[in-house]
């Protein structure tokens, strides 16, 4: 079944009023969409990340599904334990890790890799705002080249880790990228993932107005431009077979870069360099799409 806007409106989500999110929060937008696709029979395991705060402080909660907060490095292992315990009592529940990029590509990568290798039947979601935003904008292994953060005041010097491909190399049954700028592509990937047995990894680009420094009303637009400029290509890898799920008409990377204050110091020549990197990645994906199997 493909979820359309008519379906999405009717699906009950797990996000209630009263959250402590920043205005225009991309992670929140992602959660609203994902929780509608997954439904209420879902347990969320959340390591330290923006969502530790977004869910609202005790004794309140803005999340209507069961949610367990766990230490930074531990989410994928904890979700493994939850899934295995349910298995012993024949309980079929979507066990979901809802983690930021720091908890995924940096401190949580070991537990994540272990759970993927063991083929635990869980959905691991990285909502990626490309830095440690909850602690006030410090670079992570997901921060893009040249981006300003408080620990890279002159711009980041390294390329981010290609986390979806790292997971694909674990030969898990499903890996996908998504963006809050393409909500139906996003929800349909979750609709697919929840019906696949084994380890599923979905990496959602979640624009962050304070961290990326753009106006709060432009979250969806930034998320869409990231895809349309090929900065964040949308694809899925199902049983090793890669498919680019959205093939937009290419727009200049500059349109995405110049919308954000975090790339303030970047020169036009540097944007040209980044444009080359982006096109190389896109062509690489097109090449992979023609292959029988990526891994």
């Amino acid at each position, binding site marked *: 079944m493909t979820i359309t806007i008519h379906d999405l409106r009717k699906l009950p989500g797990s996000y209630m009023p009263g959250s402590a999110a920043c205005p225009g929060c991309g992670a929140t937008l992602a959660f609203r969409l994902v929780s509608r696709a997954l439904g209420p029979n879902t347990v969320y395991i959340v390591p330290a990340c923006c969502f530790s705060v977004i869910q609202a*402080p005790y004794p309140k909660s803005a999340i209507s599904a*069961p949610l367990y907060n766990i230490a930074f490095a531990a989410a994928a292992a904890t979700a*493994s*334990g939850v899934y295995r315990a349910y298995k012993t*009592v024949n309980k079929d529940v979507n066990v979901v890790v809802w983690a930021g990029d720091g908890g995924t590509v940096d401190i949580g990568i070991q537990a994540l890799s272990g759970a993927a290798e063991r083929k635990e039947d869980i959905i691991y979601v990285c909502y990626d705002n490309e830095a440690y935003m909850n602690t006030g904008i410090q670079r992570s292994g997901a921060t893009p080249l040249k981006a300003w953060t408080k620990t890279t005041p002159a711009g980041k010097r390294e390329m981010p880790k290609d986390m979806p491909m790292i997971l694909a190399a674990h030969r898990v049954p499903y890996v996908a990228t998504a963006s809050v700028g393409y909500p139906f592509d996003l929800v349909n990937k979750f609709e697919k993932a929840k019906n696949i047995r084994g380890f599923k990894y979905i990496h959602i680009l979640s624009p962050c107005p304070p961290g990326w420094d753009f106006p709060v009303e432009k979250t969806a637009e930034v998320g869409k431009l990231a895809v349309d400029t090929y900065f964040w290509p949308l694809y899925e890898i199902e049983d090793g077979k890669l498919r680019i799920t959205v093939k937009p008409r290419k727009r200049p990377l500059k349109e995405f870069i110049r919308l954000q204050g975090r790339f303030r110091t970047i020169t036009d020549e540097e944007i040209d360099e980044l444009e080359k990197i982006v096109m190389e990645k896109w062509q690489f994906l097109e090449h992979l799409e023609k292959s029988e199997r990526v891994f």
Partner: protein
Amino acid sequence: MGKEGKWEIITGNHAAAIAAKLSRVKVVPAYPITPQTTIVEYIASFIDSGQMDAEYIRVESEHSAMAAAIGASAAGVRTFTATASQGLLLMSEVLHWAAGSRLPIGMAVVNRAVGPPWNIHVDHQDTMSQRDTGWIQIYVSSNQEVLDTILMMYKVAENPDVLLPFMVCLDGFVLSHTYMPVNIPPQEEVDAFLPQYNPTHWKLDPASPITFGNLALPDEYQEMRWSMDLAMRRALDIIEDVAEEFFERFGRYHGGAVWKYKLQESDYAVVTTGTMASEAEVAVDELREEGIDVGLLKIRSFRPFPHRDISETLVDKRGVIVIDRSIAFSSGGPIGTEIRSSLYNLADRPPVVNYVTGLGGRDITYQDIMAMVKDAIGRITSRRIRRPYYWFKLKPEFERVEISEEVRL
């Protein structure tokens, strides 16, 4: 008493694994570390051969082992894991998380020294350093006590007045790899003693959703820590009750929070834990033969710490000798410190002589314990307790440096 068990000659690690099986734990996250490894190997063989109905999670670290145990226990099933030394230290962060989540997870910790340098032999530095994680800590002295204590402690930990995780601490190699006769109780007797875990305080369940562990501000946090402390204190009586119930059904009693041996009416008390307590029993008998009037108080439960029992038991002694197998650098032995704290407010308190010894597997025999007791009695009777603690069994050239060190009290 119920049906008789079956005698087998097994290691402490084998006894721990059998206890996990008899407890019908449902999820076992496992990671190898010497000298714990054979526990998780035995459990793997139980599960693979169909003797045990449980999920086995081959995790990639001890941090993940404990994190997975937390997830499984939070989902509402009985959970067990085992570790030692560096593995326990890697878990430290999530040990706090397990206790703060009020999850009655069971764990066998095979006590082993901490590096560097690498050392795989016994001391208690690993578990003692985790004393404030909110875990119940029970130290045992025999393989039978390993098995029985794991069964008992699930019952204590899952009590609605407790709901804290527990570790049963057994000395590396001295118990873990040493064969002893152990009576293995029949499964139906264990089932009657230890019913299925059925959490009523909270669990992860879409039918009854809750958010657990979200931000608690200064107005809320302190009472949560208070409630853990209250549970820990209440566990003391429950440990005793469960030990008595266990005795009625199985005919074995290893003590509650403490084990007392020839302590009534004795002039002096030696206080120690783990397998040094077994040696101390022999030392007590030998010393009494020599006319030295001494009894043994073995600390089984280091957390909760039985302050009242200790102060009431030791109040009328002429002196207390505490032997620790770990070092709180510049402060002494952790048990020595606690014993002083138990006694301090008594109007007429006995003097305490604390020894730190047996680190990294240095063998401590009953003769060593006799020597410490005699040294301590000499200091007590001649009022020469000049230091808060003494090192014992240092090599002579190090002992000379230690003696010549100025003592700053």
